């Protein structure tokens, strides 16, 4: 097991390196006309603001670090060559608009996205696991058909549409609208939780639907195994057979699938945070994309990619730990 963990960590290094190269390339290969576009946008803003200071093309290139050879740019950005102030030191760049380190804003917004993601995953699993299991143990009954319909609807209904419908129709017919003001967890724990539940459920829909189907299929397969027949013939109660003997084995592949879906759930935060006006990373990304604030875009991409990398590692390790049949070489 230790050798497996070690090997897995070693394999992460080239991946991590390539991730940084890709993020770096993303902003470095900005088409030239975007620089011009930013120039005109800056010029307009500074005229509107009445600022005397005009942004020059050289200044813009300098602030993006585009005025030195490409490998030096990469080294500087990463923080491995002087002035040693890059990604490794926790400096992911400076916002082009707010003129402050992007990490300030990102750090204040990470908890919101994290909470939304956790709520989404928990509600999705709370719905998916019981319904999926029920569907399997009562195969081809009305309840099974109902469960399968819910699953396929959860997968097929676009989350941004459901979000829009909830906001529009709830305000027309129920005279209820989600709070457009963010309530921090420390100030108003209950209000905060209420605020996150509906967006969380909508964000977890895809995860919920796929987990439901996967749980059902896996349970059906496991329930046909010999050891389940043995458990029944020993006279064990249904509860024990299902929970202790069947589910434990059926859920192993489900765990790995949930890991694969986490990036999709994370990506959903962009849509959900936009619709429900939750000040998280996703909303920040959209704002940054609209303003062409490239340091933010690259920083968010880098952070999310590293997050996914870590989640993948955890899933792989937990998979190896859960399933003793897997040989870790």
């Amino acid at each position, binding site marked *: 097991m230790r050798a497996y963990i070690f090997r897995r960590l070693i394999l992460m290094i080239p991946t991590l390196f390539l991730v940084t190269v890709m993020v770096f390339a*993303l902003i470095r290969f900005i088409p030239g006309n975007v620089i011009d576009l930013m120039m005109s946008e800056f010029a307009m803003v500074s005229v509107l603001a009445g600022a005397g200071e005009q942004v020059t093309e050289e200044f813009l290139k300098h602030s993006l670090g585009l005025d030195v050879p490409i490998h030096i740019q990469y080294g500087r950005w990463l923080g491995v060559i002087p002035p040693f102030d890059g990604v490794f030191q926790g400096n992911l760049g400076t916002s082009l608009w707010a003129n402050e380190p992007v990490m300030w804003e990102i750090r204040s917004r990470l908890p919101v996205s994290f909470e939304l993601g956790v709520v989404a995953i928990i509600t999705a699993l709370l719905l998916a696991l019981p319904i999926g299991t029920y569907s399997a143990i009562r195969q081809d009954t009305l309840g099974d058909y109902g469960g399968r319909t819910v699953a396929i609807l959860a997968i097929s209904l676009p989350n941004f549409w459901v979000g*829009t419908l909830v906001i529009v129709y709830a305000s027309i017919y129920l005279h209820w609208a989600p709070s457009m003001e963010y309530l921090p967890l420390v100030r108003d724990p209950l209000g905060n939780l209420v605020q996150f539940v509906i967006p969380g459920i909508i964000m977890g829909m895809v995860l919920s639907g796929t987990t439901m189907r996967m749980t059902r299929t*896996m349970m059906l397969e496991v329930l046909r195994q010999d050891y389940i027949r043995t458990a029944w013939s020993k006279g064990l109660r249904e509860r024990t057979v299902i929970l202790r003997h069947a589910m434990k084995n059926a859920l192993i592949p489900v765990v790995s699938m949930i890991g694969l879906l986490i990036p999709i759930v994370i990506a959903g935060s962009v849509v959900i945070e936009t619709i429900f006006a939750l000040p998280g990373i996703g909303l920040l990304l959209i704002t940054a994309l609209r303003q062409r604030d490239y340091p933010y875009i690259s920083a968010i991409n880098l952070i999310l990619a590293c997050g996914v990398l870590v989640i993948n590692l955890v899933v792989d390790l937990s998979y190896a730990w859960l399933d003793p049949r897997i040989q870790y070489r």
Partner: protein
Amino acid sequence: MTEEPREESTEVQEERKSRGLLADLFIRLIKEKPLGVVGAVIVLIVLLVAIFADFVAPYGMNEIHLWDRLGAPSAQYWLGTDNLGRCLFSRIVYGARISLYVGLGGSALTTMTAAFIGLISGFFGGKTDMSMQRFVDAWMCFPPLVIYLSVMSLLGPGLGQVILVLGLARGIRQSRVVRGAVIGIKENVYVEAARAIGASNTKILGRHILPNVMAPIITIFAVSCGYMILSEAMLSFLGFGIPPPTPSWGGMLSGSGRAYMYEAPWMALWPGVALASVVYGLNVLGDAVRDILDPRLRGGLGRYGRVKRKRPTK
């Protein structure tokens, strides 16, 4: 698959086999997968509507009737009108065209990218495989929608850009499926035999490997269509996909219309209904195709990828 007479040349055999695969797929779909047929019917309807949009739509896609703005569904405007007085039904009909382009174009690009990377990486193995797979690994770390948005903001909105970004991005992810299938096949005796008689790598890949990995390749195409349409709608919804006034189902749910939806709730309803039914149809059709072609992948991920499984489901 039917037995082929021995005298026939390999060319004829392969032609028969590839035709056999699709015909076989079609017959089994009707026989074994009633839900898949439902999906196929929905997809066919949308396909016809998209092709004959000019005849189906009662008004032009950007025809403005300012006197009838925010009108409720009526005999004149079946699904109502939007904030500029454009007929929603007509716009949804023309929107089907955009979805058709994105669905087919994006899936075709996905399939080609996945086949190209998967064949090369799986067939040559060794250092080629190792380096290509680390690249794919790194690519798969980026949450899909986030990377689509980031690249789209650099390229600017537009139909071509959407197809390019979605197709390439998903193709790189899906190449894993093809690679796995190739690795399973290249150890076969007939590949060794082909090499023994001096066939070039290109010939082995094209004539011996590719025909045998057609099942996963068709599956990738089938399950990608719905994903493409949904992703395009999401991008357009967020304002980074197809620019207005071109009617895209996602775009119709966002933008300037959002403020008017409280007055005209049908504006929020119908584009989504169209989108959801197409995605549903493509999902069940894609699942049915996958179940028939590749029983090992049965059971799980809907439109979002695949599950690694060791034993085939009974």
